[in-house]
């Protein structure tokens, strides 16, 4: 009995030692990985102070490149992603009314020449330029998609409005520097880009209903029809932004690797204990047989 007890204690000590050894090894691996960056003499990558937005051609590749750059110079810190769209009136929410169109318009001398009273209107000779800004307010890069939609209330009475749409880099998504295209060209326009942290970009939408379209009869028809029937144009702009938060959760214990190691150690301890148990049972059986 005493011998069996000693064997048990001995076995336990061996198990404990084995487990302790594995934990020490695991801790060493983890600490070593964390301490390595303090000991390395390699020059770190530096993110531009004023980085430009990166236009996506291959989603996966670009994201990985930006993420890896951010990871190289990011130390243990709190990550806060942030994305906003705003104009001179404020920040967009989920269905914000913006001022692409106006209630009244003035001519070059400052006189109001078109006035919808309480309604936003368009008429020959009216025009407007609308700017809005997309902003990365966080400290990690963000991928965003911008899309536009144009809806006419009457498919047969199409309003002769022309437009051009320019992105943050001066590239025209509709029209060009010289020419405006019919505003229906804006429908379905989509742009995807990656925005580095703490950057912004301005989009500009410009439209006009030429005073001299060359078809006064049609312009008059629209104006006369509008007396009894609303003929409307609607412009919708949506943005979708997403970001992958880097692999350093703010838990204080060094990451998932440690837990994998602990799980492996626990599993190994279970195997060892099973083996020892089997041996112990065999030894007990032999001792019992000898005593018999």
């Amino acid at each position, binding site marked *: 009995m005493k011998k069996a007890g000693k064997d*048990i204690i001995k*076995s*336990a000590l061996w198990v404990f030692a084995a487990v302790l050894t594995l934990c020490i090894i695991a801790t060493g691996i983890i600490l070593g990985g964390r301490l390595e960056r303090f000991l390395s003499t390699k020059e770190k990558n530096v993110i531009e102070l004023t980085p430009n937005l990166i236009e996506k051609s291959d989603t996966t590749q670009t994201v990985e490149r930006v993420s890896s750059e951010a990871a190289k110079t990011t130390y243990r810190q709190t990550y806060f*992603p942030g994305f906003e769209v705003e104009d001179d009136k404020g920040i*967009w929410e*989920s*269905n*914000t*009314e*913006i001022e*692409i*169109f*106006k209630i*009244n318009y003035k*001519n070059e001398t400052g006189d*109001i*020449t*078109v*006035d*919808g009273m309480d309604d*936003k*209107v*368009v*008429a*020959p*000779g*009216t025009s407007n330029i609308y700017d809005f800004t997309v902003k990365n307010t966080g400290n990690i890069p*963000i991928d965003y998609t911008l899309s536009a939609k144009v809806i006419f209330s009457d498919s047969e009475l199409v309003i002769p409005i022309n437009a051009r749409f320019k992105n943050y880099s001066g590239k025209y998504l509709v029209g060009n520097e010289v020419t405006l295209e019919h505003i229906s060209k804006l429908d379905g326009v989509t742009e995807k880009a990656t925005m580095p942290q703490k950057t912004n970009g301005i989009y500009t939408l410009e439209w006009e209903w030429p005073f001299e379209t060359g078809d006064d*009869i049609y312009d*008059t*028809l*629209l*104006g*006369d029809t*509008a*007396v009894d029937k*609303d*003929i*409307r144009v609607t*412009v*919708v*702009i*949506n*943005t*979708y*932004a*997403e*970001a992958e*938060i880097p692999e350093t*959760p703010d*838990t204080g214990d060094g990451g998932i690797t440690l*837990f994998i190691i602990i*799980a492996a150690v*626990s599993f190994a*301890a*279970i195997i060892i*204990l*099973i083996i*020892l148990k089997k041996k*112990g049972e065999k030894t007990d059986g032999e001792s019992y047989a000898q005593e018999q």
Partner: protein
Amino acid sequence: MKKNIFMRLACVVLVLTLLSTCVISGTFAKYVTTNGAADNARVAKFGVVIQADGALFNESYLKATNTPADTGTLSVISNSSDDVVAPGTKNDDGLNFSINGQPEVSTRLDVTIESKNIYLKAGTYAVMVAAPEVSATSWEADKYYTEAAGVYTLSNAYAEDTDYFTMENKVVVADDYYPVVYKADLTTGTVEADSLAAIAADYAKKLNNNVAVAASDSSAISDTYTFTKEYDPNFNYASLNVAGDTLTWEWDFDAAGAGTYDGADTILGDLMAGTLTNAEVVKVDGTIEAPVAGTDSDANDYCLETSFSVNISVTQVD
């Protein structure tokens, strides 16, 4: 038993590790946000409608349509050149035009109003009638006239083979005579002034937002008003109050039974007849000769036509 304790401890550690792994993997969140904005506008209203109803004379020409292409334009020309106006005639139905609409854009109103009225200038008129049977014995002093180059002269002696004329239907027109009296709404003129010119001036004033307009061309028989007026967005054209002014006229041949202007009406009637048989209307002021018909630039002695035309267009201005 002790081995079992170690076994259980190892199992518990394993389970806890697995649970922790699941929880930690859930904190690796993907940030997603959406934003949206929209705006819409309607076409600004125009809808200016200019309409004309009725006619002044049987030969009136109305160029006014109400199709979407022409709602901003009206042209009405009523002309009596085909002998539809004569002593004793009138038109009670008349001509009515209106302008309505409240466009939401700035507009410019272009107006041209032209009027012309039948007229006989103040003076003495008569009809020189040929006297073919005059002889030396029947000739009388202060009765017979001879004619040379359109001028009639009182004959002071009988001459053989001479055409002689007598002066008939002599009438003194004390004041300028406008036999066709026009009436619009509450405005009624008289025969002693051009009632149509007064009405034309009144229409021009109304279309100019109740500000008097000077005639761009004026004579005793015709007036022309040409002007433009700009109005701000949402100006209500109905407020010009042009609608309801029905224009009518009458040529009262007996001056309400008094017959005051019978002689003048006769002279005008003779002039309207054109060439008289063996007779000619003359004006007896100074030289005795045919009166001079009025032109666009000078009223002269008479005018045998009356007309009224209105051209209105409303155009958006930038």
